[in-house]
């Protein structure tokens, strides 16, 4: 029987090794799996490469992971925020590598990884500093830049509801990077508000089919965690 619902978040993250590449869902705080990140901090993995749209806000979630010195490199589109002090400090000190990627290219590179695409030509960033050194091509009257997929070992995402097969639904704009990160990582761990019986999620409205999800943790379980 398939049952992807984990009793404890510790078990769901126990095998994240040092040096892992970890996608973290969310755009700002919407869809950010903050409680899972807290568990990852407690778990202790270090030298991580993190993929997220931002580089953390204030002192919680991704910012706390960065502040704890666990991140070696971050791929994101918008690190600079009024309250991104943990990132700012380590980046300025040369202790945190940054790969800046336009937001749509970031999303498409993640999508490409999940969909088995080896590379794609995008018009975004052509002629700019972010395309320097990259292969370009003129196709049908337009200029494009060649970009490659971003794969990950783990994806930590936040969804709304899940069943034991790992099917996920999301809430409003908290959907953002969740569905594409789920497909791009070898092991996707989803924190959800609630779990429901198999068959309760409308098959027309499942946004992430369970095939992309390895582990599900309920928020209530997470909040009980140390």
């Amino acid at each position: 029987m398939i049952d992807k619902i984990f009793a404890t978040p510790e078990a769901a993250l126990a095998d994240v090794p040092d040096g892992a590449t970890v996608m973290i869902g969310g755009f700002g705080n919407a869809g950010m799996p903050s409680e899972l990140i807290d568990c990852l901090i407690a778990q202790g993995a270090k030298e991580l490469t993190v993929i997220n749209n931002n580089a953390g806000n204030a002192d919680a979630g991704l910012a706390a992971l960065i502040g704890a010195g666990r991140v070696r490199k971050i791929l994101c589109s918008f690190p600079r925020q009024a309250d991104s002090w943990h990132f700012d400090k380590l980046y300025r000190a040369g202790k945190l590598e940054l790969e800046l990627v336009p937001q749509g290219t970031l999303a498409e590179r993640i999508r490409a990884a999940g969909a088995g695409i080896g590379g794609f030509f995008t018009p975004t960033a052509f002629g700019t500093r972010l395309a320097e050194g990259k292969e370009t091509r003129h196709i049908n009257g337009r200029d494009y830049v060649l970009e490659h997929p971003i794969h990950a070992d783990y994806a930590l995402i936040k969804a709304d509801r899940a069943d034991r097969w790992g099917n996920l639904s999301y809430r409003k704009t908290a959907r953002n990077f969740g569905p594409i990160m789920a497909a791009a990582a070898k092991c996707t761990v989803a924190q959800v508000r609630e779990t429901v019986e198999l068959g309760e999620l409308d098959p027309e409205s499942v946004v992430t089919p369970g095939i992309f999800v390895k582990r599900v943790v309920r928020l209530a379980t997470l909040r009980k965690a140390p």
Partner: protein
Amino acid sequence: MKKLDRHQIAARVARDIPDGAYVNLGIGLPTLVANHIPKDREIVLHSENGILGLGPKPAAGTEDEDLIDAGKTPATALPGASYFHHADSFGMIRGGHIDICVLGAFQVAANGDIANWHTGEADAIPAVGGAMDLAAGAKQVFVTMEHLTKKGESKIVERCSYPLTGVRCVTRIYTDLAVIEVKADGLYLVEIVAEGLSFDELQRLNGVPLKYRAAA
């Protein structure tokens, strides 16, 4: 001469957005455009974090942390709205489905190049977000900005000195002094919006030569 304020620039942009348009408004001044859409026009606002049909700001106390706009501030959804993930959202942008995006800028060049993401300072932390995708993907790119820097230099230039966001993509420029159309053969004046500003004076202030636009 009396320059337009931010709200007046936003209102001037809103006048040019047709009924039924799909529009993405950048952060800052562009966001104000939403407040000035004529009541008889139905405009569908796109926010790149995954919503089409963005509504007005929520009333205090009704904010939902799962419903925000691209500026990460609380938002609402209109009847007819839809949610989608980031790859679909940027596919919408890149695929040329957004009729108009409105962006702020440091500089716009006479050929339509735009610079709005990086000051070029060596120690600045770079951040680009969705600006390059919008510049490359939207059918029309409207830029709103003050015409002159604090030092009085034109932000409309022959060639951008700041790092580029996109090449040959800007179609219109809305400033506190004028509305300017970017065409293949140069910049055309659509309208002087600052009260008491003559064409000659605008031409003197503007970084590059302006042409009169032939009547449509």
